[in-house]
């Protein structure tokens, strides 16, 4: 039994790492009032480019940088369209996803070596290995927490730091005020456009790491559609965590955990159809969304940034 729980926890954390990076990234972006639905495309693009980098250079650090660069570049395109050109953010994000998934698939068939006729599929590169932390990793059950790769350890730190940054620092307050009420923020002397650009791009870089974790650790290598819809789940996780990075961990554990349970159930030959289990996260999100909206209306507690997905222009009255 203990062994079962421990192995579930291990799989959950491994599956949840990329979700946590992307969720934290999208929280930063949405807190500034920009809704980015392009995560799926951004994760795919950074997964393919980071894997290509590690395949040719063997340098994992460099490939993470490439993933951040790619994620940040696509995010800056979204920022340009939605902040400067005031385009519809829903459609702009969808276009990024469409373009990113097409482009990733294209690159996956072109960036590979001649010997593999240009394909990246089926190649092996170096990957992030778990690093066991002495003593802690030997704990019963929770040992799995301390037997992960470096990216997972970093996300352990990133969660509380992001919470602290958002709620306890001046910059975090400015960021939240831009997403909440850009007019007031503008009057206070905050450059609304600049803040939105900054956090959209920063968020995109974190999403990029999330994508890279898939192709460099969780499922090493490149396969078509390696994200399997994770980019969309992230959008739900942001709501699930009510735009609070500290809560992002619960959503990622829930979704990662469902993955892990499924994995186990399939191995044990259960009679519960896998599709119903697969539906759970999505139904849970709808349910949570309904409850949260209802609760928010009742108690006026802080939830979604009020100016989310609305473009801001000073001249507009």
């Amino acid at each position, binding site marked *: 039994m203990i062994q079962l729980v421990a192995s579930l926890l291990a799989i959950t954390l491994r599956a949840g790492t990329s979700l946590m990076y992307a969720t934290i990234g999208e929280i930063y972006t949405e807190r500034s009032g920009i809704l980015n639905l392009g995560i799926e495309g951004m994760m795919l693009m950074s997964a393919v480019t980071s894997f290509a980098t590690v395949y040719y250079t063997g340098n994992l650090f460099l490939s993470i940088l490439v993933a951040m660069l790619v994620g940040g570049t696509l995010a800056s395109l979204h920022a340009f*369209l939605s902040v400067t050109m005031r385009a519809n953010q829903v459609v702009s994000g969808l276009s990024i996803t469409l373009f990113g998934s*097409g482009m990733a698939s294209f690159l996956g068939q072109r960036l590979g070596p001649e010997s593999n006729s240009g394909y990246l599929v089926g190649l092996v590169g170096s990957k992030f290995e778990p690093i066991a932390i002495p003593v802690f990793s030997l704990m019963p059950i929770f040992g799995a927490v301390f037997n992960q790769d470096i990216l997972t350890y970093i996300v352990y730190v990133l969660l509380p730091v992001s919470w602290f940054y958002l709620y306890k620092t001046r910059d975090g307050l400015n960021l939240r005020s831009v997403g909440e009420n850009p007019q007031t923020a503008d009057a206070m002397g905050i450059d609304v456009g600049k803040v939105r650009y900054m956090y959209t791009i920063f968020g995109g870089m974190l999403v990029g790491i999330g994508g890279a974790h898939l192709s460099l650790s969780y499922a090493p290598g490149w396969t078509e559609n390696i994200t399997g819809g994770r980019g969309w789940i992230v959008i739900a996780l942001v709501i699930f965590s009510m735009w609070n990075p500290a809560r992002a961990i619960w959503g990622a554990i829930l979704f990662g955990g469902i993955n892990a349970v499924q994995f186990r159930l399939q191995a044990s030959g259960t009679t519960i159809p896998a599709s119903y289990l697969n539906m759970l996260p999505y139904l849970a999100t709808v349910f949570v969304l309904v409850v949260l*909206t*209802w609760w928010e209306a009742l108690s006026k507690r802080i939830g979604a940034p009020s100016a989310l997905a609305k473009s801001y222009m000073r001249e507009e009255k």
Partner: protein
Amino acid sequence: MRIVFEKRKTLSRKAIFLVPLFSFFISLLLTAILLAIFKTNPFITYAAMFQGAFGSWPNFTETLVKAIPLMLAGLGVLIAFRLKFWNIGAEGQLAFGGIAATWVALFWSSFLASWMVLPTAILVGMLAGALWAGIPALLKVRLKVDEVLTTLMLNYVAILFAEHLYYGPWRDPKGFGFPGTPPFPEFAWLPRIAGRAHLGLVFAIVLALVIWFILNRTRLGFELEVIGNNPSAAQTQGIKIAKNIMIALLVAGALSGLAGVCEVTGISRRLQQGLSIGYGYTAIIVAWLAQLNPIAAIFVAVLIAALLVGGDQVQMMMGLPAAMGLVMQGMLLFPMLAGALFTEYKIRLIRPRTSGSLV
């Protein structure tokens, strides 16, 4: 000197026409650069894509096959978008419509006259699509739950449900493990017009005209327009916003549902893997490129379908990734999105009257 955006009183007619045209050329140019980087001749590629989509009668009918679901779902999306209801659930509405039509085609024939099965399947499928759009619409008008997320999440539920059915209880026992239901009886097949292109084409064109008429010439269309442009004005004029949103979304869902019905009864003639291949998401692109105009949506759907079919063709003939079509769609959208600014705003340069007076 300062750049100022001034909101136009009416949309610029010239920009409505020019922006898509420019965007198309920009996308051709950008994709050509991409192709050149990977040592592929863009002219030969474009010629092959065009050839593949329009080059012969059979190829053209295949383009129509892909265009039909895009037309129907695109019409559904644009009705919702006119109300600023961001329905990205066409994919799920399409799948659920397909599931319902399959249910009728496979299990209702024992107590329906055979000529009634197909019309019933169409009706039930449309109702199912309407239901799938109705849930988020109801949550939105009653509880103000964000529709982007609910429509998106319900996509997964519908797709997984379909998967469960054709892998599980509805699986063809004689299918040698193939993930799909048994084939429909022949009287449940949607008649084909040319090649694999089916009656759905007629539905789509007629419905586009009807929707254009309703949106532009009736009281309901007027009310929808007011709600979309200025909800507070709609409120003061006594327009029932909640009721109108519900009507529009039920219609939108029914249209996407019909797309699903046509796919299962007209193309695959069974429910199988590959019902959901992203038509619902591409329909959003169609609606947007058509600037939410139902008549334009028909033509845009053919254009986008041509990119998809052309992409498949260059994969077969030149070994280029089929994802080329997706890349081109994306590159078409970015300049379109940026250009929308020019339809809604005028750009003016303001020069300071006395130069040098500013520190």
